[in-house]
């Protein structure tokens, strides 16, 4: 049967098994919106700003592992979505963005609402396409989903001119597609697996450091097996939290700029490092010249360009994290050798000493609400079972440090791009994916303001998200850097003229709460979490002066951390004995 391009777009989505798309209409997209109207297999979620559409699709994808789909109109529609696309790109989210374009005969004429969508998005997509012929539509959409979801996932944009959505052609959706120029490797090289196991078994001070790749590959179970089998310490990046259970004694917490003392010291002193699905980002390594000076490094990654990019790697293994870790486990099972028990005992003794510093301690006797306390209470009130999104700033770090994630796809934040405004729209996608679960958005008053309009979307679709606003009346993370590195010149980092968030939430049709005393925190949380069918905006008025500790300042090494004032607040530099 012949269908219009617009109908074909919607049928392709249906046949890809897409349940939700997130979008906003406009002239060039109207044929597609008309096709959406005529069916109900694919449900369209109408956001209030295209940035919100991209973040919501991103949140949906991160919570499920399925591709997020965005639909926007030409010109300002796609430019508004770019921040969300770049956010997804930096964190390798599988996403397909459909952008409408002006009709083909107007392209290049500076037509009304024309922008070069393919050009603008090129540096922040895995790949993109402009479809000029309706007959190319089906193969292009099939390729888009294939590329977005395979290898190292990422956003793919398909730009579709309006006339292409009006023309007709035969519709047959292929079940699969192959491309001569694109064939990601999945299995690790067997020789490299053997070499890696040899090195691992000979380690005296090992560390296993894992990132978002373990989440994306759904490799957490395999990782847990590997870590327990070896008895080695494990640390996760901000993106990898949940891959190894936070409550397990082999877990050292998060590493990096605001990672734990024990994780960073162990990274610094280790002799063998196994990195899995992590990319040695500057927020993780600190000064590269001082990074893990004694380490022999094994690096597993699906993206060859991530290996050897920032640090020298002795054993590179290109492949899917799950398949490679399974192979490591199988190879270990074949060996009689075990790690040197004496060396391992000494190593753990050292690690326990570092742990005893208790680097995440904070003042528990304050009259003001400490933000860390709110997150701890949120953890307890939710039994550790919430799906938590966050924005960007201090609150993000506290959520990462104090909400112990025991499973993957429950901690959803913008790690790579660090996009303020991500948290609320992302939570919408997460809540749609998991309608019966508790979804919370941990945010700050500056971040939440960036996509606050999405409160209206939450109302339209009855999304009972629980917003935890750690309101310090400052762009706290900016203020912290200004306190430390700019002699307390707080240039433009305060938030004057904030709205009354309680009234604001209520005006959108939600429940608003303000909490001002530490003693009220838990009751407020209990009350809010008991509201199952409505969004609750909890505005916690927190200590304005609180800082995130520990901290590795830019240009410093892992063994030069600032600890909290309670811990002396001196950079603790220690050389390996």
């Amino acid at each position: 049967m012949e269908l219009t391009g617009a109908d074909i777009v919607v049928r392709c989505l249906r046949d890809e098994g897409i349940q939700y798309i997130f979008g906003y209409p406009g002239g060039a997209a109207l044929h597609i919106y008309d096709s959406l109207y005529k069916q109900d297999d694919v449900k369209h979620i109408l956001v209030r700003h295209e940035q919100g559409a991209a973040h919501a699709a991103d949140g949906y994808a991160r919570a499920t592992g399925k591709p997020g789909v965005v639909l926007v109109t030409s010109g300002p529609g796609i430019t508004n979505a770019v921040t969300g696309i770049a956010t997804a790109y930096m964190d390798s989210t599988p996403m397909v963005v459909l952008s409408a374009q002006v009709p083909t005969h107007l392209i290049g004429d500076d037509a009304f609402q024309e922008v070069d969508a393919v050009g603008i998005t090129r540096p922040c997509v895995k790949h993109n396409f402009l479809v000029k012929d309706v007959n190319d539509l089906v193969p292009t959409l099939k390729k888009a989903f294939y590329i977005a979801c395979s290898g190292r996932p990422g956003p793919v944009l398909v730009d579709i001119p309006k006339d292409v959505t009006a023309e007709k052609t035969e519709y047959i959706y292929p079940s699969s597609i192959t491309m001569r120029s694109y064939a990601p490797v999945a299995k690790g090289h067997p020789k490299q697996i053997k070499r890696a196991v040899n090195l691992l078994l000979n380690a005296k001070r090992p560390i296993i450091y894992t990132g978002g790749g373990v989440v994306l590959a759904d490799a957490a179970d395999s990782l847990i097996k590997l870590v327990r089998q070896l008895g080695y310490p494990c640390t996760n990046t901000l993106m990898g939290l949940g891959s190894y259970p936070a409550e397990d004694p082999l877990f050292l917490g998060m590493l990096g700029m605001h990672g734990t003392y024990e994780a960073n010291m162990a990274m610094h002193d280790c002799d063998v490092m196994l990195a899995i699905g992590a990319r040695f980002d500057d927020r993780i390594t600190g000064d590269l010249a001082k990074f893990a000076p004694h380490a022999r490094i094994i690096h597993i990654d699906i993206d060859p360009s991530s290996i050897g990019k920032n640090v020298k790697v002795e054993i590179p293994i290109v492949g899917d994290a799950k398949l490679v870790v399974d192979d490591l486990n199988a190879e270990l099972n074949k060996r009689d050798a075990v790690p040197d028990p004496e060396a391992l005992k000494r190593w753990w003794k050292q690690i326990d000493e570092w742990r005893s510093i208790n680097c995440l301690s904070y003042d528990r006797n304050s009259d003001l609400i400490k933000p860390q306390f709110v997150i701890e209470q949120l953890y307890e009130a939710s039994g550790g079972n919430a799906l938590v999104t966050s924005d960007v700033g201090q609150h993000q770090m506290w959520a990462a440090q104090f909400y112990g994630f025991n499973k993957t796809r429950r901690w959803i934040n913008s790690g790579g791009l660090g996009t303020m405004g991500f948290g609320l729209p992302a939570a919408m996608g997460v809540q749609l994916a998991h309608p019966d679960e508790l979804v919370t958005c941990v945010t700050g008053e500056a971040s939440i303001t960036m996509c606050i309009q999405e409160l209206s979307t939450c109302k339209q679709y009855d999304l009972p998200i629980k917003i935890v606003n750690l309101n310090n009346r400052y762009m706290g993370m900016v203020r912290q850097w200004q306190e430390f590195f700019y002699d307390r010149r707080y240039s433009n980092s305060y938030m004057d003229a904030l709205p009354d968030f309680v009234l604001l939430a209520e005006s959108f049709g939600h429940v608003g709460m303000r909490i001002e005393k530490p003693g009220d925190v838990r009751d407020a949380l209990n009350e809010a979490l008991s509201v199952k069918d409505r969004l609750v905006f909890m505005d916690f008025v927190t200590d304005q002066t609180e800082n995130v500790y520990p901290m590795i300042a830019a240009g410093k090494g892992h063994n030069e951390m600032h600890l909290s004032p309670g811990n002396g607040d001196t950079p603790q530099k220690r050389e390996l004995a």
Partner: protein
Amino acid sequence: MRHIISILLENEAGALSRVSGLFSARGYNIESLTVAPTNDPTLSRMTIVTHGSDQIIEQIVKQLNKLVDVVKLQDLTEGAHIERELMLVKVRAVDTAREEVKRLVDIFRGRIIDVTNATYTLELTGTVEKLDAFVKALELTEIIEVARSGVTGIARDDRALNV
């Protein structure tokens, strides 16, 4: 180190800008870049001359391979290879310069491909060094304009870049 990287890529609109965009976004250096369709019209062949440490060249190769439009890639400088560049030069040729330039062109095995009362247009192919040497040899001649194609190349022996 100087490297010559040959790339087969899908002959699609935008493929060229993906490659050039990659180089500018990541701050890699491009000395020259040439591109044209091959005997298979669905494929283009691109030749990039770049400089960088081993680590940077490794990243360039990996990043290029990661581009979805790139089908295959070869670092020609890893083995024996032939490189050529085409140069057209228009010079002022009057009086004694007419004989002088003609002699030089013969020495460099170039050709005079267009002549006016006052000018010659010269054609020369060769390595970058040879073309540079020729331009230097024209020192006493007034050069009106120079057009160079950038380097293209091919591996010696059995090594080949095809699909």
